[in-house]
């Protein structure tokens, strides 16, 4: 309902229709540490989400290798991102994916409520879906 924020969910939905047997698909609105137990027991994981970095035009596919991300020293409310999750999982020796990928799209509107994607994001959807499917193959 936050406009472009839905891009990850919509993309995963489409991917699941195209590649049903290749993975388990989970749709969630949770973020941060609450995600931890969703990943337990898997060897590989892909997160598909919206990002708003301001560095790329909306619609750009942004791929992130979590190893390039550095954990933040002292997260503020709700915010423990993927690096913190990975660090936590390794400290706790839980069965966590060894391979992690974040495939995101740079988006435009995520703060004004809307049931629709903005134009650029909508146009980029097929590319996002294709990128995720490529990884699953």
């Amino acid at each position, binding site marked *: *309902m*936050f406009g472009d*924020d839905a891009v990850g*969910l919509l993309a995963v939905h489409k991917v699941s229709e195209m590649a049903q047997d290749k993975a388990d698909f989970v*749709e*969630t*609105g*949770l*973020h*941060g*540490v*609450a995600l*931890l*137990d969703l990943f337990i027991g898997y060897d590989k994981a892909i997160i598909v*989400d*919206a*990002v*708003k*970095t301001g560095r790329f035009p909306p619609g750009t596919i*942004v791929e*992130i290798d*979590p190893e390039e*991300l*550095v*954990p*933040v*020293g*002292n*997260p*503020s*409310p*709700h*915010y*423990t*991102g*993927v*690096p*913190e999750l990975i*660090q*936590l999982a390794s*400290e*706790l*020796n*839980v069965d966590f994916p060894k391979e992690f990928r*974040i495939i995101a799209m740079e*988006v435009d509107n*995520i*703060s*004004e*409520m*809307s*049931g629709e994607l903005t134009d650029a994001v909508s146009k980029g959807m097929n590319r996002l879906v294709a990128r995720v499917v490529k990884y699953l193959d």
Partner: protein
Amino acid sequence: MTQHIVVDPITRLEGHGKIDIILNDDGAVDRAYFQVPELRGFERFAQGRPAEDMPQITPRICGVCPTAHHMAATKALDELYHLDPPPAAKKVREMMYDIFTIEDHALHFYFLAGPDFVVGPKAPKAERNILGVLGKVGKEIGLEVIGVRKRLRDLMTLVMGKTIHPVFGLPGGISKPIAKENQAKFIAAADLAVEFGKFSLKLFHDVVLKNQQYVDFIVSDAYTHKTYYMGMVDDNNKVNFYDGKLRVVDPNGNEFARFSGREYLAHIAEHVEPWSYIKFPYLKAVGWRGFEEGNDSGVFAVAPLARLNAADGMATPLAQEAYEEYFKTLGGKPVHYTLATSWARLVELLYAAERVRELANDPEIVSPDVRILPKEKPTEGVGVVEAPRGTLFHHYRTDDKGIITMANLIVATQNNAARIAMSVDKAAKGLISKGKVDDGILNMIEMAFRAYDPCHGCATHALPGQMPLVVRVYDSNHNLLQEVCREKA
């Protein structure tokens, strides 16, 4: 001499997690502003949609408390269609809602605000997180927290479906009863949750309360505000998260008002400040006197600290003991120390666990009689629940086909917005002098609002690893002197 600044519309705070600090000519803080993000566009988004969709759509407002929105929306539909659900439906709703409250409170204490206390506010920032907590109390605790939360979340998924599209609450009841063969699972999970609740309080006691430095910190003036408090209570004035009346107490702890959710507009009004997009709720009967404390200012607070102040006790025995110990230790009712919220949260966690145990053991919890169907035309409905972060209101008006013509939402954090702004301002004033602002200040100020755990909060869609909170310091002519933001570890 302070130059009076007119904060014109161009300089309004916007978006997420910005603190603007304006210094006077002596380098002391004239004013600090913290903008709590607001939900822009909800009314426009909801208009024209079927009200019956709201319990599925509104959970998406907040990835952290989707169940609170689902429940508030469902209750608004009950009223919209003039329905009183069967007792079994109310019990199942309350049980599921309290399960959600336990896992959310656990997340907050162990992963978010708790680290400030367990590890200590002066600890290096690299340690002030869940890993630091585990370093202090042992890794098994981390696994236990994750394990308990997973168990509770699995039960929620079993009954309610996915959090992103819950199929559970309906006007007049719930979609399906609890299957008899599942009752034992709830009882077992409840027993585990009660033990976990007891353990968490003991941990707080041993690690935080036995350390005088931490206690001094909790009761320090920089984090104290004497405001009104609001929380939901049952017929005996005990804390209830799912249903009851809203009770307000004044800064001395005396009952000031007691009203049903649908009367909220008669008691709560919203004030708009020129520097903010957000509206600040306040008590109409007292009036808006600015960001001030005391009996003459209508500023009020919600969430665990407020709920324990507004109630006369907890409805379950172990939580009641914990409640009494809490007030005895902190000098009686009401408690004004914002940082005590974490302790209050654990008292609530224990209550929720005991209450789930009561409900899970109730034979009526597996009754098949869980719904009555709408017969009358819809008109208007207000649904109120206590979300983990405070009172949440959903208010809908529809045409006679159930299509929304008006929708209003007051989320928990909005109710706290004025007090959060005051907390940030007070912390900034206490910590900054002669224009010196450093990294340590950032954490101290953050602690002031981390206790409130603002919802739809400062987690934005920045690249993972980037902190969304920025503190900007301006001189009295509104020239930017300094920008302090989180650095990567």
